[in-house]
């Protein structure tokens, strides 16, 4: 009897039923449950303009993403003081995708379809971007994505304010090749899409520069890898072939500290084998022992240390807004700064928050970089950027040792990869296509607007 499922006495059965019923019906009122604002029928033309902020505030990615939320809040507050845009105030809608990729998609849906935000600033990892991409394309939203990434993507609904590979990786390699005289290359990366693609591009690029396969070593390690002994020893041996050797590191976040420590301990100094990293910025250096990293390099489009009045002003404003002097300002934060201001301009240009209008208006908008000169939103929804090479300093900051003479135009489709060498993205009519095959003369994939 009692073994058969469960036994209920009649008095309480009602309760149980009620319990389940409440649960199921409560799903109906989820919109109120999950978002403070009541579901509006359609984006209102009056009242505050809502801006979505989609960055992980908890979980493993919180380290990198939480500061971006602070930047956005600062920018929005500042803009509201200036009277908002088109006479309307801006209202931030912050959600926490908790470093959980499916949750990113869910929250994106909520922001666009329930909160009816005018634009979303968010995502960090490639996988989070990939998981929200279909949502933005389906609901025709606007995403401003502030992080350097692997490229090979060009969506109409996304504005990539971070660097494409040719705006970070390739100049860095040029620097090592020409300024430091590196002849032998180690491409060391964490095993996920960004390093894989970047290294593929670099491999092709280096080959095109006449680097033989014997002088190229590519190596992948898992996330959070901490036991670098063998790997570093490999690099050491590889570097003992009598040619100047350099390491191009696409190692992700947490694995970096043990890596540099091991380098230091095995006696590899930046002067022997320089390491240039693409994922190590001020935020990553904050609060780690930088001694082992001294003199190693990083390639970004911005460093907090760049010496321009505008930069000093913005950084100061940020530190004030979070009233913490120890907080740092890094490349993706600058990207958000530029992206946000570009979006404002676009809204004013379009005279509305209507997505299609804004998307078209964005292209061609220019705004000053914190590192000087102007960033322009190109028809491929990427920015023109300067590329800076910085050396790690004792104080967790970078010192710029080299900088591209001019601005670099992004190539989301790498010309060094066979599958994408004929592709370009151009969202201006007549082309209006994210992946246009200039040879076949037709638009590939489903990116046609």
């Amino acid at each position, binding site marked *: 009897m*009692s*073994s*058969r*499922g*469960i*036994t*209920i*006495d009649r008095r*309480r*059965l009602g*309760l*149980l039923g009620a*319990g*389940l*019923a409440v*649960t*199921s019906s409560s*799903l*109906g009122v*989820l*919109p109120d*449950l*999950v978002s403070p604002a009541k*579901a509006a*029928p*359609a984006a209102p033309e009056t009242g505050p303009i809502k801006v979505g902020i989609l960055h992980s505030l*908890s979980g493993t990615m919180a380290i990198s993403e939480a500061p971006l939320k602070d930047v956005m809040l600062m920018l929005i507050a500042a803009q509201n003081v200036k009277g908002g845009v088109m006479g309307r105030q801006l209202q931030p809608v912050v*959600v*926490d995708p*908790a470093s959980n*990729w*499916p949750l990113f*998609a*869910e929250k994106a*849906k909520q922001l666009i*379809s329930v909160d009816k935000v005018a634009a979303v600033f968010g995502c960090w990892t*490639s*996988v989070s971007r*990939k*998981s929200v991409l*279909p949502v933005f*394309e389906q609901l025709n939203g606007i995403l401003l994505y502030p992080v350097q990434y692997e490229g*090979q*993507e060009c969506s109409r609904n996304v504005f990539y304010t971070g660097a494409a590979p040719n705006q970070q990786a390739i100049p860095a390699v040029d620097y090592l090749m020409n300024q430091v005289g590196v002849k032998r290359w180690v491409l060391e990366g964490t*095993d*996920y*899409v960004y390093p*894989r*693609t970047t290294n593929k591009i670099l491999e092709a690029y280096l080959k095109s520069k006449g680097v033989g396969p014997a002088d190229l070593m590519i190596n*992948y390690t*898992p*996330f959070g890898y901490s036991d670098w002994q063998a790997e570093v020893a490999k690099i050491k041996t590889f570097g003992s072939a009598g040619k100047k050797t350099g390491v191009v590191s696409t190692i992700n976040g947490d694995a970096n500290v043990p890596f540099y420590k091991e380098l230091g301990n095995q006696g590899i100094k930046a002067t022997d084998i320089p390491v240039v990293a693409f994922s190590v910025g001020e935020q990553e250096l904050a609060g780690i022992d930088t001694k082992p990293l001294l003199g190693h390099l990083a390639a970004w489009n911005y460093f907090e240390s760049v010496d321009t009045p505008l930069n000093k002003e913005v950084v100061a404003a940020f530190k004030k807004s979070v009233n913490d002097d120890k907080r740092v300002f890094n490349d993706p934060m600058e990207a958000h700064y530029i992206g946000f201001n570009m979006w404002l301009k676009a809204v004013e240009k379009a005279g509305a928050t209507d997505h299609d209008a804004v998307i078209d208006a964005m292209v061609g908008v220019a705004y000053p970089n914190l590192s000087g000169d102007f960033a322009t939103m190109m028809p491929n929804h990427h920015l023109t950027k300067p590329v800076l090479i910085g050396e790690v300093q004792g104080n967790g900051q970078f010192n710029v040792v080299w900088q591209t003479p001019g601005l670099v135009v992004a190539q989301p489709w790498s010309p060094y990869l066979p*599958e*994408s060498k004929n592709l370009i993205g151009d969202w201006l009519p007549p082309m209006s296509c*994210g*992946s246009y095959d200039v040879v076949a003369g037709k638009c*590939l*994939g*489903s*990116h046609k607007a």
Partner: protein
Amino acid sequence: MQLDRTTTAVTLVCVLGGSALLAVSNLLYPATSVLHVPDFVISLVGKYLCYAILALAVDLVWGYVGILTLGHAAFFALGGYAMGMYLMREIGARGVYANPTLPDFMIFIGWNKLPWYWYGFDHFLFALAMVVLVPGVLAGLFGWFAFRSRVSGVYLSIITQALTYALLLAFFRNDMGFGGNNGMTDFKDILGFPLNRESTSAGLMLITAAVLSSAFLLARAITHSRFGRVLVAVRDAEARTRFLGYRPESYKLVVWVVSAVIAGIGGALYVPQVGIINPSEFAPGNSIEAVIWVAVGGRGTLAGAILGAIIVNLGKTWLTNALPEIWLFAFGGLFILVTLFLPRGIIGLFAARPAIRGAPEAESSAAESAAREVAG
């Protein structure tokens, strides 16, 4: 018996009725209406129902045979990957590189030919078969080894965790050909129904509800059969059942495989609704989370598993919005409170007599064996 039927009825009504209600108000009422349920709520509910299926699978093995599985999310994810592979092939030439056969991520890592284990996934039925077979076979092998060599109690729990952990690492590797860390996403349509259409997501949710209900009925049928009673017997006094001439291992194996398959189907339904499948689904934490859903709802009461999954996830959705930093405290606290003060879960509160009076004894016997194993 009478009362038990009523519980079942209540559960079915709530699952089917509730979801139907939502679907209707989503499709019939215009977006302007107050009664309109936004699209994302539908996919949200769909997600919850998938979790409920997973919870059901966990309850079947934990509640009735006392196998505390810390790796069931692995079967869930495998089912999801099987479905994901189908959806990937469905994209066809609409991918970024317009390659009719190769998924984008393969071109990404420079493959020019489809690996053999991707063959056939362009057929929906084949994919469905895999959804059932892959988790089933893996569970079969794993269980056959484990149960035959009488690995039990915490040891079993630990190696189930190791299993899902190993799979996690494996699927992270890009060379595996399953999209590495990014997994698979950007799906276009399923059986020709575009995934981005409201009616599709509503339909998927309804199907999920239907599957959940039938899984519930199946599980109920199993646990009510003589087989089910043997399971309880094995859970509480495995040695005794041996001396009665039963082979506990074969009973465990059967229910283990069934449970894994249910979990796999849940995963298959999960993927089209959340639009992405990637290795993070294998994370050991997910499996343990599923166990706590069951614990909250009430272990060994199938209805409780469903209730728990939905309630906990509602709380998660709400908390991650309202107070992100509180979330982990609340969730962790839930584990402790439930195990300390609510060993029979929410349903237990309603049950006149212990739903599984055996539970504490069951544990203590398990404990003794553990104690014996570690004695000295």
